[in-house]
């Protein structure tokens, strides 16, 4: 079966000022050769820290900015080269939910009008639009009698539900969600995650779900892509990536996630990465992660590791990829086939 969305070798460089008329402009290497596929009705989780290019990837896939190179085929139409008219038609099937529901809703419009807007734009409001808006509000578990209220009268979680209702108005096949819950309070997040899972089951909509929180990604994704400084460092089925994280960065990310278990938190060994993410203006040669990696050797500075399966059962972009199921310190202790973490290699472990 052909995937719903097939992204191949996506590249985006931004000019970063410097020089008159940009003649000596430097380039921000935001997204560098990213590839992934999303099937119908499934969720692809993209995880990474700020500056890893996950939001830029989302915007490119939505056709919201031109790419430097690469393709993003949505049902065999390349979003990146589609003519405006074709792109408009695609947008009915491809919608997004933004991070901050307060900033993405017009404060002067009632939520009903906000949800109805996509219907109006696509000429679908006249016939039964009013009922459709009420239906959508019910779908996202809001009171349909609140259509005449304004965004400020809703809480953060409710506003995000309005954002989701608006995105679903045109019955899209794919929803791109960029950090949809990170601005919400903990007790509210769970409700929105549950809603998204439920909607997928009922409507068969596929998600590209972007987050920095690995536990949320694990809960909601079928497939996972881990990004670092514009590149995919590891990808695969959810359980493959979480049970056998094989790229040092994925291992460090998993290890850095605090868990709400005081005993385990105090006991476990943490992988502490030194320093910061390097500037995307001047990414390191070879492997981009090598400047913070405890496994780095000379070859890492010279040769860029390809994203291929190196015997871990899923693609990993590391010359020294090695599955480490006990990284989080919380994994199933029954698994004895786990290789030990390489603490002999100068890894700064915290007690």
């Amino acid at each position, binding site marked *: 079966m052909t995937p719903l969305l097939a992204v191949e070798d996506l590249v985006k460089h931004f000019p970063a000022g410097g020089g008159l008329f940009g003649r000596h402009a430097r380039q921000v290497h935001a997204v560098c050769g990213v590839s992934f596929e999303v099937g119908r009705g499934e969720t692809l989780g993209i995880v990474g820290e700020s500056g890893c290019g996950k939001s830029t990837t989302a915007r490119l896939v939505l056709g919201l900015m031109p790419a430097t190179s690469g393709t993003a085929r949505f049902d065999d139409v390349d979003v990146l080269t589609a003519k405006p008219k074709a792109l408009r038609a695609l947008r009915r099937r491809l919608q997004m939910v933004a991070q901050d529901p307060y900033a993405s809703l017009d404060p002067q419009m009632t939520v009903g009008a906000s949800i109805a807007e996509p219907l109006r734009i696509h000429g679908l409001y006249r016939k039964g639009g009013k009922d459709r808006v009420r239906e959508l509000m019910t779908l996202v578990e809001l009171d349909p009698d609140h259509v005449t209220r304004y965004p400020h009268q809703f809480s*953060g979680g409710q506003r995000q539900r309005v954002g989701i209702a608006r995105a679903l108005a045109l019955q899209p096949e794919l929803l791109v969600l960029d950090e949809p819950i990170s601005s919400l309070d903990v*007790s*509210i997040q*769970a409700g929105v995650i549950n809603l998204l899972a439920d909607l997928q089951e009922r409507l068969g909509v596929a998600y590209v779900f972007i987050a920095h929180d*690995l*536990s949320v990604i694990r809960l909601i994704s079928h497939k996972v892509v881990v990004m670092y400084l514009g590149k995919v460092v590891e990808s695969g089925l959810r359980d493959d990536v*979480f049970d056998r994280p094989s790229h040092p960065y994925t291992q460090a990310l998993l290890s850095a996630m605090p*868990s709400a278990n*005081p005993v385990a*938190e105090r006991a476990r060994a943490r992988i502490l990465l030194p320093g910061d993410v390097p500037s995307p203006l001047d990414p390191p040669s070879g492997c981009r992660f090598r400047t913070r990696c405890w496994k780095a050797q000379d070859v890492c500075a010279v040769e860029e590791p390809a994203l291929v399966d190196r015997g871990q059962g899923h693609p990993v972009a590391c010359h020294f990829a090695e599955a480490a199921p006990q990284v989080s310190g919380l994994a199933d202790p029954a698994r004895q086939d786990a290789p030990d973490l390489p603490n002999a290699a100068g890894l700064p472990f915290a007690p």
Partner: protein
Amino acid sequence: MTPVLEIAGLEVTFPTQEGPVAAVRGVDLTLEARKVLGVVGESGSGKTVTMLATLGLLPAGAEVSGSVKYRGRELVGLAPRELRKLRGAAVAMIFQDPKTSLNPVQPIGHQIVEGIRIHHPDVGRKEAAKRAVELLALVGIPQPDRRARDYPHQFSGGMCQRAMIAMAVANDPDVLIADEPTTALDVTIQAQILDLLRDIREEKGVAIVLISHDLGVVAGLADDVAVMYAGRVVEKGSVDAVYTQARHPYTRGLLASVPRLTDTRHGPLQSIGGGAPSLLHLPGGCAFHPRCPHARPNCQVDDPRLRPVAGVEAACHYAEELGPVASK
């Protein structure tokens, strides 16, 4: 053991156009020397306002009553002059967004020097500058002598937070109040900063109040934890007790609604229905009752107070009936 910070019956009310808003409604907290107290709660629960009131940093209109004692000395109603002597010396604070907390037009080192010399005018400029470099080294800034001359925009978010911590510990405080110190940072940088706070606590013996919405952040660092909801502490106790034997329905709901890395099920998460109440129109009785799965008619009338229940303190009429909860 004598507590370094003792907050008792603290109330803070802000006048607004729509009427007075009670942001903190009778909070009791105790911070023991060299301990870490985690304060957990969602936005608007009053955790930051409590700490700002402690330091006398609230805007002029705010009405503060109750008592805040630092080593037995009352801080509420203390003259601004006296408070200034304490702030940044005995009690220091770091904030969520380090970039906006630093002065953008002064070199980092200079800002640390200023902090030292305000409280110790006898320390010479040169000596203070030397001390600033030592502090930057202490918090793990590479090439501290060179980086001391950098401006905040030349520092990453994580490094700015390190600089803030250097500034906070410059005068060897007894108490460090850290308000969401890692919320604006990435996960791997968050791990670095939490590790640094752990080291600072060991090395300097400073007691820390760690404010966070993240139960995971608090779990790894705190000795004791207080859970706040709508301006009140609804549960407190040792971290181990609260995380494994929570007796307040809100704490239990919070703990259950956090997705865990070890969760492999694809089932729904538990969530708390509804949203935090408006502080302008607080529900009668227990402020949590409209969202509480265990609420009974008297919860709408009787306001539960914090009381000891099997290893923790919880503000719920039915805490005993809820029984202990096994942590996942």
